[in-house]
C-alpha cells in the first residue's frame, strides 16, 4: 500500500505527459504549485508519512478492497469477470483514497483549510470526511445544478462540518465548481490547500492523484495473481476526470493487459449531449492542463451531459490523453440508457448496485463481452456504490 516507487511514464519536469498536461494557471498560484511539488517529493521519501497513510487507508478507508469473482455475471457474459470493489470503500467510492493522501500532505505543508470541487458530491463527501477526521476546516464548491441532483450528499457534507458553496456561474456543474475553487485558492493561497478530486488540473495534481489512486491497481494485480496466477486480458473503468481509471490502470501499464476507459455517451453524439472528451473532443486547455476537451469552435468550453454527475466534465486528465495518443489505452463511450441497463443488470445478477458512473464501466464491458473467450480474465472497476443514485431512480419510478 505504498506510493509507486518510480513513476513509469511521466510526467516530465514541466508536468507534461507527451504533449499533454502542463501548468496553465494564474501566476499567483505558481509558487503554491511549486511548493506542492517539492512538498510531495519530500513525503514520497518520508517513512512516517507512509505509515500514516497506510493506517488511514486500512482502518479508516477500508482497504484493501476485495477483488470479487462475479460468477453470475461471468456466466451471463461468457468469460471470467472480476469486480474491483471500490464501492466498499468508506464514503462509497474510490475518491477517499486520494483524499486521505492529499489531506495528509496538506497537514505536512502546514495548511489547515481545505477546499475542493465536487460533481456528484462523492469527492466533496470524501474530502469533508477526512477533513473531519483530521480536524481541518473544509469548504466544498458544487454547481447549483448538482446540488439539486445530489441533495443527500450536500446534507452529508454539512453533517461532516463542511461549508458547501453553491456555484451559479456557467453551466452550474462540475467545471464551474472547479473554476470557483480555483478563484478561492487564488484568494486564500497562503493558508489553503486545494484538494483536487481527479487526475486533472495543473501539474503536479495529475501525478499526485494518480499516485494516491494507484493503490487500486497494485492491489488488484496482487489479488488476481493470487487467485488466478495470471494477469487479466482486459480492465474496464469509467472515465470522468479519470482518477479511478488511471488508479486501476497504472500498475498494469508495463503489462500486456488491455486498458479500456468508458466515457459518458449521454443522450447522443452531438456536442452538449455527452461528456466523452477522449472519444469526441479535441486538444484544448482548461483548468490548468492541456488535454482533450469538448469545446465549441470559438474556443469556449462546450456544455456537457451525463446521467452520472461524476462523469459530467468537459475535460479529462492529461495522462489519459497521452495513453490514448500512445495507444496504450483505448476509450469509447456508452449512453445513459446503456449505463442504466447495466446498473439494473449488475444489481439483479450480483446484488451489487453500482454508482451510475461505475455502471458505465459495466456497460462498456457488456457491450464488448463477445470479444472474450470462456477462459479470458476481465476486471471491471466498480468505482463506487449506487446508494447515492437510488433516490433518482425512485423519483423517476413514481
Amino acid at each position: 500500500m505504498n506510493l509507486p516507487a518510480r513513476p513509469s511514464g511521466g510526467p516530465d519536469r514541466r508536468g507534461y505527459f507527451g504533449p499533454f498536461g502542463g501548468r496553465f494557471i494564474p501566476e499567483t498560484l505558481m509558487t503554491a504549485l511549486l511548493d506542492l511539488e517539492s512538498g510531495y517529493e519530500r513525503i514520497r521519501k518520508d517513512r512516517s508519512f507512509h505509515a500514516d497513510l497506510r493506517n488511514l487507508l486500512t482502518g479508516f478507508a477500508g482497504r484493501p478492497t476485495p477483488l470479487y469473482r462475479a460468477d453470475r455475471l461471468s456466466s451471463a457474459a461468457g468469460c471470467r469477470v472480476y469486480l474491483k470493489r471500490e464501492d466498499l470503500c468508506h464514503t462509497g467510492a474510490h475518491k477517499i483514497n486520494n483524499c486521505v493522501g492529499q489531506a495528509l500532505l496538506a497537514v505536512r505543508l502546514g495548511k489547515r483549510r481545505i477546499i475542493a470541487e465536487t460533481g456528484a458530491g462523492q469527492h466533496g463527501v470524501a474530502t469533508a470526511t477526512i477533513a473531519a477526521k483530521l480536524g481541518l476546516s473544509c469548504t466544498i464548491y458544487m454547481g447549483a445544478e448538482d446540488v439539486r441532483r445530489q441533495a443527500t450528499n450536500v446534507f452529508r457534507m454539512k453533517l461532516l462540518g463542511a461549508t458547501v458553496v453553491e456555484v451559479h456561474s456557467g453551466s452550474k456543474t462540475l467545471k464551474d465548481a472547479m473554476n470557483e475553487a480555483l478563484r478561492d485558492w487564488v484568494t486564500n493561497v497562503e493558508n489553503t490547500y486545494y484538494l483536487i478530486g481527479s487526475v486533472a488540473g495543473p501539474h503536479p495534481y495529475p501525478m499526485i492523484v494518480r499516485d494516491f489512486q494507484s493503490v487500486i491497481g497494485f492491489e488488484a494485480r496482487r489479488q488476481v495473481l493470487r487467485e488466478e496466477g495470471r494477469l487479466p486480458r482486459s480492465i474496464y473503468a469509467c472515465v470522468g476526470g479519470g482518477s479511478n481509471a488511471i488508479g486501476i490502470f497504472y500498475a498494469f501499464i508495463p503489462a500486456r493487459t488491455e486498458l479500456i476507459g468508458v466515457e459518458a455517451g449521454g443522450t447522443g453524439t452531438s456536442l452538449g449531449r455527452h461528456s466523452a472528451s477522449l472519444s469526441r473532443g479535441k486538444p484544448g486547455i482548461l483548468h490548468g492542463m492541456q488535454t482533450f476537451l469538448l469545446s465549441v469552435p470559438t474556443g469556449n468550453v462546450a456544455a456537457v451531459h451525463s446521467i452520472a454527475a461524476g462523469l459530467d466534465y468537459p475535460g479529462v486528465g492529461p495522462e489519459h490523453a497521452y495513453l490514448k495518443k500512445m495507444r496504450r489505452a483505448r476509450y469509447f463511450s456508452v449512453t445513459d440508457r446503456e449505463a442504466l441497463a447495466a446498473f439494473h443488470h449488475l444489481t439483479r445478477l450480483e446484488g451489487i448496485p453500482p454508482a451510475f458512473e461505475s455502471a458505465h464501466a459495466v456497460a462498456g464491458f457488456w457491450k464488448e463481452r463477445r470479444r472474450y473467450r470462456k477462459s479470458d480474465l476481465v476486471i471491471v472497476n466498480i468505482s463506487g456504490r449506487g446508494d447515492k443514485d437510488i433516490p433518482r431512480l425512485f423519483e423517476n419510478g413514481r
Partner: protein
Amino acid sequence: MGAKKLILYLTAGYPDGSRFARAASVAADEGVDILEIGLPFSDPVADGPVIQAASAVAIRSGVTFERTLAMSARLPQSLPRVLMTYANPIFVRGWSRAFSLARSAGFSGAILPDIPVEELASIEPFRPPGFYLVPFVAPTTSPDRLSRICRTARDGAFIYLVSLRGITGARIGDTVAEEVTAVTRRIRRLTHAPVYVGFGIRTAADAEKFGRCADGVIVGSSALAALGRGLAPFARLIRQMRRKLDRLD
C-alpha cells in the same frame, strides 16, 4: 499628458457592439493610454463576478475571436490596444495564426492570465515580431522566478503586476500598497519594462495610490460596472482617474 499610464479593460461587445465602440472612443478622448480588450472566455478563472457577467453577456450575443478583431480594427489607429483572453481561444486557432491575426487587427500584444512564464516559454516561438506577450508578477512570485519573468518582457511588453492575492474586482486590503511598492522596486532592478498594477483598482483614490507605486494602473471591473450604468458615469470615472494620475508627477 502625465507620465503615469491609465490602462482600461473592456470586454469586447459589452454591453453591446455599439456601446462598446462608443466606450472605447470615450476612453481615448479621456486620455486612456492603452485599451485592454477582452475576448470573452466561458471559464475565466482569474476574473471576479463583474467580468464574468460581462463575458457571459458578450458570449451570448455572439462575440468571438473574429468579431473581437473586427471591433478592434474599427477603433482609431492612435489608440494602443492589447488583447486579453485565456489560453484556449488562442490555442484552438493555433498560437501563431491567432497572434498574427490579432496584430493585423491593431493589437500590439496579448495578455493571457492562465499562462505563467514556464508555459510562455513554449509559446514565445509563435509570437510574431513586434507583438508582445505580457508577463504577470504576483505578490506570491518568488525572487528566482521574478528574474525569469522580467527577462520575458520584450518588444514593448509591460509587466502586469497583480496587486493582491485574488481575482479581478476583489477588495484591496490595507497592506497591499506597501507590498506593491516593494515588488515594483524589485522589478525595476531587473528590467526597464514599465510596471502597471491591476486587480481591485476601483476609485480615483485607488488609482492615485497605486499610480504612485508603479508606472500606471489597470482598471477593469469598476469601469465595466460604471459602463453598465451608462456612458456618463463611465466617462466620469475615467476622467477622475486620469486627473489624479496626472497630478502625480
